[in-house]
């Protein structure tokens, strides 16, 4: 097992590099010129050329790539082209916000999904089941740019309980994280329910029942354990979706996070900033993946990774 983990750790870096390389070439191929955006309409073409020269943007792509990577290896993410400050500063100032939002969303999703999923499976076809499924349906079918404002109208304006947007205190976190986490919660509810229902038919469950264990223990201890695998996969999978969803949620709730920063950077063709953002997003994603794999492995030692 140790060998497996060291293997995975070693692969971490090349994967990251692969991702960054892909981004690098992709963003340079998209039409659009950062210098045009930076200098606006008043600057002369001479100035624009000079700026391109200075930023090294008129050099062949291969050379730019090498420069970028060598700087990266020295820990230098470069300066943002459009915003002020270094890429590292900008990202550091926004990253905690996104992490907060994502973790809160995941927390809410787990918190809501497990009880609902379990109840739904245990009391299959009852009212509880139907309510859970309805809830899950809402979460799946409502995109967060619709759900968000609706929640705002209900909870913030009509009921007046919560603030509308921005990031200024714990109360501000509730609506955005709920909006973001709704999708994951819906998927989890169904997954938990379906997984439980699947495993309940397994032989060893019958054995457990035969052994005289109470129905609840049967469900929770045995069935749930085996559903955990699928659940973990889903959580890992959906983390990427959370990060992607954060872009929209952050825009709607005026949450100062990386998602919005990335979109802005793409729109202004701020190459260093895009690279930096992707680096951070990819790293988070890969870390979560890694942890998911570990949990997966620990939860079910039967899974092996060799031929």
């Amino acid at each position, binding site marked *: 097992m140790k060998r497996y983990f060291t293997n995975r750790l070693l692969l971490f870096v090349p994967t990251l590099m692969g991702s960054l390389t892909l981004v690098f070439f992709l963003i340079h191929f998209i039409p659009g010129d950062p210098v045009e955006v930076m200098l606006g309409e008043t600057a002369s073409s001479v100035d624009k050329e000079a700026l391109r020269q200075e930023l090294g943007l008129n050099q062949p792509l291969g050379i730019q790539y090498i420069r970028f990577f060598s700087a990266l290896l020295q820990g230098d993410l470069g300066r943002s082209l459009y915003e002020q400050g270094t890429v590292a500063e900008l990202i550091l100032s926004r990253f905690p916000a996104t992490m907060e939002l994502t973790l809160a969303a995941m927390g809410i999703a787990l918190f809501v999904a497990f009880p609902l999923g379990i109840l739904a499976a245990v009391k299959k076809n009852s009212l509880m089941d139907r309510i859970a499924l309805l809830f899950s349906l809402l979460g799946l079918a409502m995109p967060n740019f619709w759900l968000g404002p609706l929640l705002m109208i209900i909870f913030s304006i009509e009921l007046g309980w919560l603030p509308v947007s921005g990031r200024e205190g714990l109360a501000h976190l509730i609506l955005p994280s709920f909006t973001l986490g709704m999708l994951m919660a819906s998927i989890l509810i*169904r997954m938990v329910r379906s997984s439980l229902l699947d495993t309940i038919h397994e032989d060893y469950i019958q054995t457990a029942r035969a052994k005289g264990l109470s129905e609840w223990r049967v469900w929770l201890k045995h069935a749930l354990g085996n559903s955990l695998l699928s659940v973990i996969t889903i959580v890992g999978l959906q983390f990427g979706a959370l990060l992607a969803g954060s872009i929209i949620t952050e825009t709607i709730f005026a949450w100062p996070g990386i998602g919005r920063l990335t979109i802005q950077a793409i729109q202004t063709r701020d190459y260093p900033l895009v690279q930096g953002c992707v680096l951070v997003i990819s790293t988070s994603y890969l870390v979560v993946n890694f942890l998911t794999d570990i949990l997966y492995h620990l939860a079910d030692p039967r899974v092996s990774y060799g031929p």
Partner: protein
Amino acid sequence: MILLLLLGVALLGPAIAPYSPTEQHLEQDLLSPSQDHLLGTDKLGRDILSRILYGARISVLVGTSTVGVSLLIGLSIGSLSGYCGGWVDQLLMRLVDVLMAFPGILLAIAFTAVLGPGLNHVILALCLIGWTGYARLVRGEILALREREFIHAARALGGSPGRIIVLHLLPNLLPPLLIQATFGMAAAIIAEGSLSFLGLGVQPPTPSWGSMLNEGRQFLLIAPHLTTFPGLAIMITVLGLNLVGDGMRDRLEKRGK
């Protein structure tokens, strides 16, 4: 049953729609549902009912093609990876990781920027982002199943890897895959809407439910029917898909055990 209704609407849409989905009447904008316009009109005075009916086709198209293609790719790569294991597995999974660690949105922007906007490119972009999920799921399930007794038995009996995958592993994969697929279709329809939010979805005046939802979003406070109806359309479709998924799972389960 719902799905049948959906298909019916998608096919018959143009025939039963009372108005053209693109005919504009600027003066009749944002009307609430009335006798003339059962579901009201949108900002440009277009009949919403007609747009929803036409939109059914688009959404069905987006959903099925995205999921279909993604599933195929994901299935192939995932089973290959899960079954063979070893370096094949590692390589493919790293590829999946690289792609997944990558903000899909960037890919979508790159696509529409380079290829130009439009429905086909949206589907293409969604597929390219989407297959990875299926691949991981398939791989995961295969890894779990691979060590089960009945697989050992099949191998002992001398079955070739291909046979084993198709005959024994696939049927067990179907339940989670189908469930994921039904989610996937719903997700694709919504993803198209999210892309519209960022301005990258279908081009005007094409009515897709996702883009209608997004367009109507701005009028949420004054004309909520612009979002309610496409939203309901999506919800009903998702419900239908899920019911189908559940039903299939139940039946498959009975057969397999």
